[in-house]
C-alpha cells in the first residue's frame, strides 16, 4: 500500500481506513526485578476526525500505547495500524502523516533560536525553503511565541518550550496528532491556549485526528469526542463522555469540602447507604492544602444526615457542600475501584 496521496477532504473521509486500529496489543517491558506488563490486550478503534482521549492513572500504559502507535516502540504481541499502515513494518508511511507532542519536557537544542529549530524541522519534513520559513512564522504566531521567535531555546520557560514543541508537532500538518499530556505543567491560561489551538487545528480540516492523554478529567471531558478509561494496561470502558457518565448508577452525588479529615474516608465509606466515598483528585478547592475534598455517592439524599453526624464525631467541619452531576472522575472511581486522588504513584 502506498501513502495516501491527497489530504482528507469531506468527501473522502468515508473512504479512509480507521485512523487507529489496535488489536490485542500487549507490551511487556523487561525490567529489573520482574517484567512489567504495561499493556495487556488492548483493542481500540478510532475513526478519522475523532478527538479521542485516554484517561488513566500513572502507570496505566497510556504513554506506552502512544509510543507503539508513533513507531517508537514495538508491541510484544498484537497488531496496530495507523490509517491502515502497520506500526511494525510501514514506519515511513506512518511517520509522514503523524506527529507527537509530549508534555512536561525539557527538549530542544539550547543554542538554537526558536525560529531556527523549527526551520530545521521544516526541512526534515521536506518543505521547500521559502515555504518552510512561512510555515515556521505561521506556527510561531499560532502558538503565541512571537516575542520569543529570536530567543535561544535554552532561555525559554517550561510553557514556552511546550508551545515550541506543539509548533514542531504541527509542522508536517499531520493527519493524526498524538498528544501525551500536552498541558502538563502549564498555567491555566497557557493550557487554555494549547487546548483552543489543538481543537481549532483539528476542526479546520475534516479528517484530522487526535489521540490525547491527560490526567485532567475536565480537559478530557471538555475536549474529547470519545474516550477510553485505562488501568493496568487494559481498557476498562469506552464511549462518549456523556455515555460514560450515564453509566454511573443513579443515586446522589455530593462533593464535600472539609477543614480536616483526620480519620480518613474509610469510616464514612463504611456507613450504610454510602456507596462510595473517595478523596477528590482535581482538588481545585484546596490549593493551600488547608481543606480536604471528598466525593460521595449515596443511595439517597437522606443518607447525608448520617454522614454529617459521623463527620461531627470525627471533629471534621464542613466548609462547603455541593450536590453534583456525575463526572468522569465518578466513572473512573466506579470502574477502577479507587479515586484518582488515592491512585498509587506509578513509576514513570
Amino acid at each position, binding site marked *: 500500500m*502506498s*501513502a*495516501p*496521496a491527497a*489530504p482528507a477532504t469531506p468527501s473522502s473521509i468515508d473512504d479512509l481506513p480507521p485512523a487507529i486500529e489496535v488489536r490485542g496489543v500487549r507490551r511487556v*517491558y*523487561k525490567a529489573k526485578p520482574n517484567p512489567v506488563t504495561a499493556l495487556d490486550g488492548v483493542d481500540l478503534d478510532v475513526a478519522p476526525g475523532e478527538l479521542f482521549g485516554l484517561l488513566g492513572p500513572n502507570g496505566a500504559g497510556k504513554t506506552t500505547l502512544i*509510543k507503539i502507535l*508513533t*513507531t*517508537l*516502540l*514495538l508491541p510484544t504481541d498484537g497488531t496496530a495500524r495507523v490509517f491502515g499502515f502497520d506500526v511494525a513494518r510501514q514506519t*515511513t508511511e506512518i*511517520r*509522514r*502523516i*503523524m*506527529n*507527537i507532542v509530549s508534555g512536561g*519536557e*525539557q*527538549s*530542544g*537544542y*539550547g*543554542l*538554537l533560536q526558536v525560529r*531556527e529549530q523549527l526551520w*530545521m*524541522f*521544516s*526541512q*526534515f*519534513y*521536506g*518543505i*521547500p525553503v521559502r*515555504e518552510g520559513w*512561512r*510555515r515556521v512564522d*505561521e*506556527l510561531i*504566531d*499560532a502558538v503565541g511565541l512571537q516575542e520569543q521567535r529570536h530567543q535561544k531555546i535554552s532561555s525559554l520557560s517550561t510553557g514556552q518550550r511546550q508551545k515550541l514543541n506543539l509548533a*514542531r508537532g*504541527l*509542522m*508536517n*500538518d499531520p493527519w493524526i496528532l498524538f498528544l501525551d499530556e500536552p498541558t502538563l505543567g502549564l498555567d491555566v491560561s497557557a493550557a487554555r491556549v494549547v487546548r*483552543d*489551538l489543538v481543537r*481549532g*487545528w483539528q476542526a*479546520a*480540516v475534516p479528517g*484530522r485526528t487526535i489521540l490525547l492523554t491527560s490526567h485532567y478529567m475536565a480537559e478530557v471531558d471538555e475536549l474529547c469526542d470519545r474516550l477510553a478509561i485505562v488501568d493496568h494496561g487494559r481498557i476498562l470502558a469506552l464511549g462518549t463522555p456523556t455515555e460514560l457518565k450515564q453509566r454511573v448508577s443513579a443515586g446522589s452525588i455530593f462533593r464535600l469540602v472539609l477543614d480536616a479529615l483526620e480519620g480518613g474516608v474509610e469510616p464514612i465509606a463504611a456507613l450504610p447507604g454510602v456507596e462510595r466515598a473517595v478523596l477528590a483528585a482535581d482538588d481545585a478547592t484546596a490549593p493551600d492544602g488547608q481543606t480536604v475534598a471528598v466525593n460521595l455517592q449515596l443511595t439517597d439524599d437522606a443518607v447525608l444526615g448520617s454522614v454529617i453526624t459521623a463527620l461531627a464525631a470525627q471533629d471534621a467541619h464542613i466548609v462547603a457542600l455541593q450536590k453534583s452531576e456525575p463526572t468522569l472522575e465518578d466513572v473512573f472511581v466506579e470502574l477502577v475501584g479507587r479515586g484518582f486522588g488515592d491512585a498509587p504513584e506509578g513509576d514513570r
Partner: protein
Amino acid sequence: MTQLAGSQARPQRDARGTWQERLLTWRTAVRLGWAVESNWADPVLFLIYSIAKPIASVLMLVVMLQVISNGAASTADLGFVIVGSALWAFVMGGIAGLAWSILDDRERYRMLRYLAILPGSLSVILLGRGTARLLIAGMGSVITLVVACLITGVPIDIGRIDWIMLLVCMAIGLVAVIALGTLMAAVCMQTRQDSWSYPEAVAGALFLLVGAVFPIVVLPQVVQWVGLLMPLTWWIEGIRRAVLPDAASGIGGVGSVWTDVTGTLAPDQGVILVVSMATTAMATLVAFGGYRWSERRARERGLLDRTTGS
C-alpha cells in the same frame, strides 16, 4: 489566531524515500550539527581541541621517540610517527562525532525521539549530525601534520607526494572512519549515559593495533592478525606512502605475520589499495548490519526516547 488550515505543508508527503530526499535530510542534519556544535567554530575552542591537543600529542610521541633512541631517530622515523598520529585526530573525531550525536540528542537535547519519528531515516540524520565533527577533525589533522612537520623539521617534499594515491586513500579512509563511527553509534544507542567515553576508548585501543605510531610487527601474532583486518591499518599505510615515500612500512618486516604469509617484506601500493578497499567494504557491511540490528533492538526495548539520567 491563524486557522492553520490544511494543504500548505503537504507537498512532499507522497514522495517515497528517494536519494534526493535522503540528501535533503542529510544536508539539514549537517546544518543542524553545525549550528548545535557552533561553539566548535569558536576560534579559541577550535584551536584548543582540534589543533593544540593533537599537536601536543604528536610532539609528545616525537619526544618519547627521541628519548628512547637517544636522539638518533631519523627523520623517516619521525615522519612515520607524525603522519600516523596526525591522522589519528581524524579517526578520533570521526568515530566520536558520530557516536556522540546519538548521546547528545538523546541525553542532552532530548530530541532523539523527534528525530526518530521523522520520515527520513535516522541513520542519515545521525550521519549528518556527525559530519560537522568529522570536518573539523579533518581540518585538525591536516593542520597538525603541517605544524608538526615544520616544528620537527621532517621534510615533506610536495613534488614527491603521490596525489592520486593520497586522494584515493583519503576517500577510502573517510568511508572506513564513517563505518567505524556508525558501529560505535550503534553501540551507544544500546548503552547507558556513561558511554560518552566509549568512542574515545575504542579509538584509543585501535590506535595501538593499526600501526599508527609503530610498525605492527612488534605486536604479538594474534594481535597482528586483528590489525591486518582493520581498514585503518591499510589506510594509514597508504597515506604514509603517498606523503612520505621514504618512511618505513608499518606492515610487514622480518618475522611479521604479513611476511610469513605472503613471503614479501612489505605490501606494494597496489596491494595496499586493494586490501584497504576490501577491508573497508567489510567494515561497512558490518557497520550497516550492526546499525540496523541496533535500531531494531532499540525499538523493541524502547531505547530511542529514554534518558538514562543526567
